[in-house]
């Protein structure tokens, strides 16, 4: 089952029309071909997909360290002042008895980013090595990563709401730099999954067609 690329066809990423690209180059670029229906530029694949995805992933992985080590929030009441990282915040939720909330925040703020970064790393490495391992499973993994990743923003919104609500002489909430690192981790992972082109995984899987572009 050849891909559209091997058949010399490009799918317009805006209007969906499939067109034949005249004289596609050896590097697989379309050379300024335009979609006949909506006149936008046609691309076989997202440009520099693996490079951009790797760059965003590395940034996310690096930022993940300060995001979890630095404190994100200080809660001041008349009785005490408590400085929390993401994980210690989860632990105090758990001890306070709200274990469903603790699980939810832990899942969104720690588990999902870790899984997302690992999954994208697996996808990038397997694609770069031109692996033919289970493309359908990898495509499903990519779809999951793409859908779920935005939910890691949960803690950012929680912190913003707490900062806005808890403002009085008796109690206050202060947000720290760890929160910025965390927000950036989420942004980087979202950009990473938006840059990745899953069709690259299928390029290794499709047998060359006699009607190929060259």
């Amino acid at each position, binding site marked *: *089952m050849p891909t559209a690329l091997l058949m010399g066809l490009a799918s317009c990423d805006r209007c969906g029309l499939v067109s034949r690209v005249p004289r596609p180059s050896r590097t697989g670029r379309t050379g300024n071909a335009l979609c006949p229906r909506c006149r936008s530029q046609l691309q076989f694949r997202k440009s520099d997909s693996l490079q951009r995805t790797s760059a965003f992933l590395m940034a996310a992985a690096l930022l993940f360290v300060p995001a979890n080590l630095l404190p994100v929030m200080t809660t001041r009441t008349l009785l005490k002042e408590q400085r929390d990282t993401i994980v210690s915040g989860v632990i105090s*939720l758990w001890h306070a008895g709200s274990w469903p909330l603790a699980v939810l925040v832990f899942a969104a703020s720690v588990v999902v980013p870790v899984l997302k970064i690992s999954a994208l790393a697996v996808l990038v490495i397997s694609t770069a090595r031109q692996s033919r391992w289970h493309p359908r499973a990898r495509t499903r993994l990519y779809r999951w990563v793409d859908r779920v990743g935005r939910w890691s923003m949960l803690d950012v919104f*929680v912190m913003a709401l707490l900062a806005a609500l808890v403002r009085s002489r008796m109690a206050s909430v202060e*947000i720290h730099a760890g929160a910025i690192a965390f927000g950036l981790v989420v942004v980087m992972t979202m950009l990473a999954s*938006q840059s990745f082109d899953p069709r690259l995984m299928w390029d290794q899987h499709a047998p060359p067609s006699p009607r190929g572009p060259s």
Partner: protein
Amino acid sequence: MDPSRAGSVGLVFRACGDCDAVQTVGDARANEAELTCFRCGALLVLHGELGGDGAVTRRRDRALAFILAAIPLFIAAQLFPLMRMDGHDSRIAVTVLGAVQALHQQRMDALAALVLFTTVLLPALHLACGAYLLLFHARRGIAPRAATVLRLWTVLRPWSQIDVLLFGMLVAFGKLATVFHLVPGAGLPCLVSVLLLDRLANSSFDLRSLWGSPAASPSDSLRFPSEARTPW
């Protein structure tokens, strides 16, 4: 697939966005609402693109109605508070913009910008793009720069995070409810409605159908895909 029947049956010729497999309607897997790729299961097209012109028009009108309804609700959601807190010595009402401002006051401007974009600016832009394309389609056909606007709409989709904000409210509510007295504000049902209306609009009409089904152009386009143009 018999190409000579193409024009009358209204077939769709697509390359899967996830695995690049080329397929026609006959190849793809169909259920009530959508067609999925036969090879990898990705969503190819909502059924809004198939069916006669009458069905497409009805779906478009429905999507347009949902989006136009969402716009005033979205504005209301910014004006009315999401939650109100009656503390021992204070009553604080927080709107979405209020949360942004609170972060700004703590000199966390990067986070304030992030929240502002993902809960106010980008969802507004996303709604505006959808309304722009559908309004033109209802009145005059393809909007100017429609391809660019559609691309913007597609890119913005994951960045419009009102649903995550609502969950964040749940968590904040859970964290504070034991100590403080929290009351949902009028902005909350407005925001929930915006979310629902946006989902309904998306599932009613696939915006790529703006240009019509490819088989509405000459039936040759199925047997011989149209040639891409060059700019010179």
